[in-house]
C-alpha cells in the first residue's frame, strides 16, 4: 500500500498512525522522544525546586507574593480544553473525516495561542513587580522552566499550523495521518507538563 494512495472511508485502516513501517517508526520514535522529554522537564523541575525563593535580598518578591489563582486557572482551562479538542481531531481523523479534523485542530491552535497570550501577559506583570530572569536565581529558574514549556507550546503551534496549511488541499492519507497523530501526542504531552507546572510551581508556590 502506497502511503499517498487515495483511500476511502472503507479502506481507511483502524490505526492509520501505525499502518506503514514509516508510520510505525515515527510513532515509536516520537514516544521515545517523549520519554527523553520527561527527563528534560524533570531536570528543570528539580532545578526550580532547588532554587525556589532563592533571592539575593529580602525585598524581592517570592513565589507566594507573585502567583495568583485566577490567571493560572484561566491558563489551565485553556490548555486542558485544547487537549480535549485535539482528541476530537484525532477521533475525526480515525473516522476519515478530514474537514472536521481540520476544524478541531484549528480550535486547538486557537486555544494554544490564547494560552501563550495569557503567559506573555503574566510574565510582563511579574517583570514589573521586580521578578526578572536576571534578578535572582529564583527568577532564572522560574522563567526557564515555565518558559521552556511556553516554548514548547509555541513550537507546537507552528507545527500545527504548518501541518494544516500543508495538507489543507490534499486530504487525509496514510502519509500525513501519522503526522497529525504524532502532533496530537506532542500536544497532550505539553498538557501533561502543564499539569505539573500549575501544581508544583503555581499551586505549591501559593501554599508557600
Amino acid at each position: 500500500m502506497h502511503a499517498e494512495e487515495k483511500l476511502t472511508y472503507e479502506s481507511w485502516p483502524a490505526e492509520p498512525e501505525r499502518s506503514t513501517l514509516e508510520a510505525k517508526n515515527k510513532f515509536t520514535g516520537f514516544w521515545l522522544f517523549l520519554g527523553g522529554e520527561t527527563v528534560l522537564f524533570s531536570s528543570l523541575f528539580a532545578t526550580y525546586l532547588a532554587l525556589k525563593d532563592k533571592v539575593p535580598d529580602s525585598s524581592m518578591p517570592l513565589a507566594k507574593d507573585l502567583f495568583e489563582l485566577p490567571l493560572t486557572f484561566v491558563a489551565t482551562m485553556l490548555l486542558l480544553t485544547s487537549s480535549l479538542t485535539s482528541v476530537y481531531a484525532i477521533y475525526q481523523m480515525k473516522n476519515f473525516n478530514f474537514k472536521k479534523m481540520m476544524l478541531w485542530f484549528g480550535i486547538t491552535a486557537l486555544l494554544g495561542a490564547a494560552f501563550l497570550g495569557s503567559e506573555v501577559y503574566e510574565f510582563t506583570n511579574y517583570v514589573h513587580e521586580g521578578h526578572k530572569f536576571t534578578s535572582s536565581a529564583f527568577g532564572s529558574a522560574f522563567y526557564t522552566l515555565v518558559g521552556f514549556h511556553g516554548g514548547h507550546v509555541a513550537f507546537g503551534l507552528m507545527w500545527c499550523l504548518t501541518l494544516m496549511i500543508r495538507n489543507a488541499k490534499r486530504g487525509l492519507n496514510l502519509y500525513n495521518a501519522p503526522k497529525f497523530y504524532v502532533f496530537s501526542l506532542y500536544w497532550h504531552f505539553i498538557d501533561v507538563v502543564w499539569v505539573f507546572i500549575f501544581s508544583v510551581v503555581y499551586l505549591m508556590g501559593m501554599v508557600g
Partner: protein
Amino acid sequence: MANQQTNSGNPRVDHEYRRRKSAEEMRYQVVSFSLMIFLTLVAFGAVAMKGSAWFTVPFIILLAVVQVVFQLYYFMHMSHKGHEAPSLFLYSGLLVGLITILTFMTIIWW
C-alpha cells in the same frame, strides 16, 4: 513491508464495529476530560481554602498524578495495545526524572 491490518475481510461490518468502538472511546474521553476539569477545580479549591501545607501539597500532587494518568491512558491511548515500548520508555524516563527531583529536594539543602 507488508503492513498488518486487522480487517475481518468484510469492510462494512468492520467499520460498523469500529465506529461504535471509537464512539464509545470518545465517551470515555469526554468523561475523563470532565474528571480532569473536576480535579483541577479541586486542586485550585484546596489552595484557595488556605489549609495546612502539610495536607495541601501532597494532595495537589496526588491530583496532578491522577490527571496525568488520564491524559496518558485516555488521551494518548496508552491503554491500547502496541504501546509496550512507549510505556516502557515513558516510565523509565519518569523514574530517572523522579530520582533527579528527589535528590534535588533532599541533598541540595543549603
